């Protein structure tokens, strides 16, 4: 994928325990494997199989989309900011980990 994921984050400097909302979207055809061309050729299934969000090396969230998830999958989730770190998001399809995005979270001094 040549186009990078689009990421929005409610705060990169949250206070401790604050709920941080993250929105992420990636360009991907999400081909269901149900569609057939006029000649009878079936387009093979090609979907994002996994999305993971890590804080440094610790897993925060794992998402396993199936064929019902829309083209160019959009995912929104929240995390509680217990500590700062690198929020790393990784998208996986049959070709492997094909996209990654990183945001740095640092706790605000109160």
């Amino acid at each position, binding site marked *: 994928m040549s186009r990078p994921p689009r990421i929005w984050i409610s705060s990169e400097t949250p206070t401790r*325990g604050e*709920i941080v*909302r993250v929105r992420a979207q990636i360009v991907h055809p999400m081909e*269901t494997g*149900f*569609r*057939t*061309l*006029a*000649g009878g050729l*079936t387009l093979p299934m090609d979907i994002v199989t996994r999305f993971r969000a890590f*804080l440094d090396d*610790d*897993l*925060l*969230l*794992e*998402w*396993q*989309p*199936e*064929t*019902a*998830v*829309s*083209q160019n*999958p*959009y*995912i*929104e*989730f*929240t*995390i*509680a900011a*217990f500590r700062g770190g690198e929020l790393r998001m990784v998208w996986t399809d049959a070709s492997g980990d094909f996209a990654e995005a990183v945001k740095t979270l640092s706790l605000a001094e109160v």
Partner: protein
Amino acid sequence: MDRRRLLTTGAALGVSLVSGVLPLAARAQMTSTAAPQPDDSESDRIAAEFLQGAVPLSAGLAMDLPALGDNPAAVPVRVHLTEAVSETSFCEELIVLAQRNPRPLICRFRFTQLTGAADVALRVRLMQSMGLHAIARMNDGRFLEARADITVAAGGCGM
């Protein structure tokens, strides 16, 4: 570059453009072998597999859907816990089902203690008007469920 060469290059470019357009024309004639589930049995089977005999509570989990899915190829769905998440009480796993889709399981989420929340939103493709069903498994073994019905505009689902 002389005029002749420019013309031949242009012609070659034109040909490559046309061949690039051909799959688009074929796409218009694309058909789908996707068939909706005749009833909720497949969805209920997946739900039962997830529940492993447990009885889900109908409180604590909420699902938000628009009143009308005007674009069945991208219906916004939000699923979130309505009870407080703490270090000792959090959601471990969540499944979302579209009961009449060809493959009813929309997706599965896994959360950890570090997540500190369970609030997700995504966009789904729906084959027709149907019920959606979400089930969350909490770390203490409780299961929470939420159900919602949605009417989607006809056709163009793209499945």
